[in-house]
């Protein structure tokens, strides 16, 4: 696996230029963030006025040796990893894990901006790209990881994903698709198209995810457009299509599995991994179905990353490697419900979703065209306006 880990000279690094040449602006911006956070009620963490990481490329590119160099400061969504995996790591390496959680990707970035130091974070593909381009992530030399081959050898897509050329700063963590979850007992079989969301039978108990990308992406795919489109003509068509769906909707909610489980939803746009929670918690798992649409289902993944200002990157490398061990990956997969691109775990996930085989993610499903990407600032605003119009009606 020597071919995908050259020095990073080929990586576009234009984003460093403006950041470094606007020194004073950075402190103003960090002040701004600190104040803004206070206004948001997120609270200040005591170091809100420190500068965000302004590490130079030489510092972020320095290879990290996999060795214990302090406790692991872990920053992730809550309940993402089986507690037994944590305790196993602590015991094996004799280090402590200091855990904290974020509740959204922007929340994670805000904490990093406030100067908090974490050793391992779990950004989505979209955010991994933003952080990597801003020089906020350490380079990860995959040859230093014992188990990297299990990922990159079997899932060639991740050798050079769009969000992080050559996966130079990231190691993929979990993957998911977005489809439709529904109650078989109430609606019978569906047709395997996004058109199913307009089903008159479930009208009034249909939910869409409360997620701009997912809702706009669904409409775009149904119309045969690029899910990341920012063209005004496309957005107008998507908005009017979604307006025809609105009368059938009961709500926009990202609590897809609870809505299905407590009977509030008979059909909902759903993330594949959340359907595993439905299977695990339902009294009768055969009542539920999950399908991906033939027009295309968005695919996504998140990843491990080490922030540029991490104090214990060596321990973070050990932790990533530990989680990639198939036995630990299987525990994580079973706990979380989302598959990991780690060779040797596929059959365990297949067993987990035997009831809903469409939750499976094959290496061939990972198509860059079905990922949600970072639009330009103007494009993001155009999409956000469309989303506001859809949501507010």
């Amino acid at each position: 696996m020597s071919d995908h880990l050259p020095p990073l000279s080929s990586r576009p690094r234009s984003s460093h230029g403006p950041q470094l040449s606007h020194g004073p602006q950075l402190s103003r911006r960090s002040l701004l963030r600190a104040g803004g956070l206070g206004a948001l009620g997120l609270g200040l963490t005591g170091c809100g006025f420190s500068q965000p990481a302004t590490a130079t490329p030489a510092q972020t590119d320095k290879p990290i040796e996999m060795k214990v160099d302090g406790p692991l400061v872990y920053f992730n969504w809550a309940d993402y990893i089986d507690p037994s995996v944590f305790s196993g790591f602590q015991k094996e390496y004799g280090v402590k894990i200091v855990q904290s959680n974020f509740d959204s990707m922007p929340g994670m970035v805000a904490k990093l901006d406030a100067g908090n130091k974490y050793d391992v974070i779990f950004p989505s593909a979209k955010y991994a790209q933003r952080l990597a381009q801003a020089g906020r992530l350490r380079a990860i030399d995959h040859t230093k990881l014992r188990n990297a081959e299990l990922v990159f050898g079997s899932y060639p897509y991740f050798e050079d994903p769009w969000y992080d050329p050559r996966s130079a700063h990231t190691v993929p963590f979990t993957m998911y698709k977005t489809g439709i979850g529904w109650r078989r007992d109430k609606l019978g079989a569906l047709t395997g198209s996004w058109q199913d969301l307009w089903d008159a039978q479930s009208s009034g108990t249909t939910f869409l995810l409360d997620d701009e990308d997912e809702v706009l992406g669904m409409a775009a795919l149904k119309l045969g457009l690029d899910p990341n489109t920012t063209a005004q003509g496309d957005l107008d068509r998507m908005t009017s299509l979604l307006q025809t769906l609105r009368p059938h909707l009961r709500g926009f909610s990202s609590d897809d599995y609870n809505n299905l489980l407590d009977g509030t939803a008979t059909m909902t746009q759903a993330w594949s991994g959340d359907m595993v929670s439905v299977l695990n918690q339902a009294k009768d798992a055969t009542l539920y179905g999950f399908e991906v649409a033939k027009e295309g289902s968005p695919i996504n993944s998140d990843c491990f990353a080490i922030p540029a200002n991490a104090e214990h990157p060596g321990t973070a490398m050990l932790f990533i490697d530990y989680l990639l061990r198939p036995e630990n990956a299987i525990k994580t997969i079973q706990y979380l419900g989302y598959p990991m691109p780690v060779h040797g775990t596929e059959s365990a996930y297949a067993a987990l979703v035997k009831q809903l085989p469409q939750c499976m993610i094959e290496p061939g499903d990972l198509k860059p065209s079905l990922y949600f990407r970072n639009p330009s600032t103007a494009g993001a605003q155009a999409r956000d306006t469309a989303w506001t119009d859809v949501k507010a009606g």
Partner: protein
Amino acid sequence: MALRTPVRTGDPTGGPAARRERRERRPRPSATGARIWTWLTLPGTVWMSVFFVASLLLVAAISFGTTDELGDPRFGTNLGNLRALADPAYRDVMVRSLGYALLTSVICLLVAYPVAYAVALHAGRFKNALIAAIVVPFFANYLVRMYGWSVLLSDDGPVLRVLRAVGLAGAHTKILNTGFGVIAGLVYGFVVFMIIPLYAAMERMDTSLIEAGRDLYGGPLRTFLFVTVPATRQGAGAGVVLVFLPAMGDFVSAQFMGGPNQIMIGNLIQDKFFEGQDWPLGSALTMALMAVLLIAMFGYLRRARKDEAEASR
């Protein structure tokens, strides 16, 4: 009805005139004393300046800003965010939020008045225990309580199951994701802000006035309308403001209890700051909301000042 506070009526010094006199006899603070009190306001002033006024100014400044590639705000002189507010979607949602907040205030007043009345005037030695019973549940996080309600009120949840069993709800009756659900959530969330000022006003009220009303042949209703209500009007006014302001900006109730047609302005603002990654537009929306709230607040203050002027005449 029995006399409510026999002790006070029997007390020769209990009359309003006597009390006014007592107030005037209170020793005047000396010059040093006054200076100490001034210094004691310092921590609060600093705290408010840093965490409230400064933050507010930042929000105002960001509303003219732009967004960088990482999704972080940058200062600027961009008027686009204010122009974006012309989108009719915002106006409609703002009007809806106003309606919800007003309705919530009225319902809270109707619910809280009898509660505060009963606790303040008839609860005797259980008064403090009852107030604690009202306040303590509100120490639990609002979001968590709303989430709990959304589970209780779901279609297969316990509330509807019971209502269906006793024939009060049909097979298709819904509470969750309706306007009723959102307003019920807002009322539940903020009613305590109405109960407390009303309770304080009633507690302070001179109950001999009620007896005087009776003595002058006022029936219970007339006495209530012409004695009790005016005496507690300021408490009610404070309660309406305390409920209206947070209800207007709330997003939690609409998020958990609302559907696509119940979205409130708070939800849109939250979207801008989080998923939309457009802090400048979120700030502009916040400023617009604050402008609406300031107008409402201004109206209330003018009204309160007029009341006070009348009362002192």
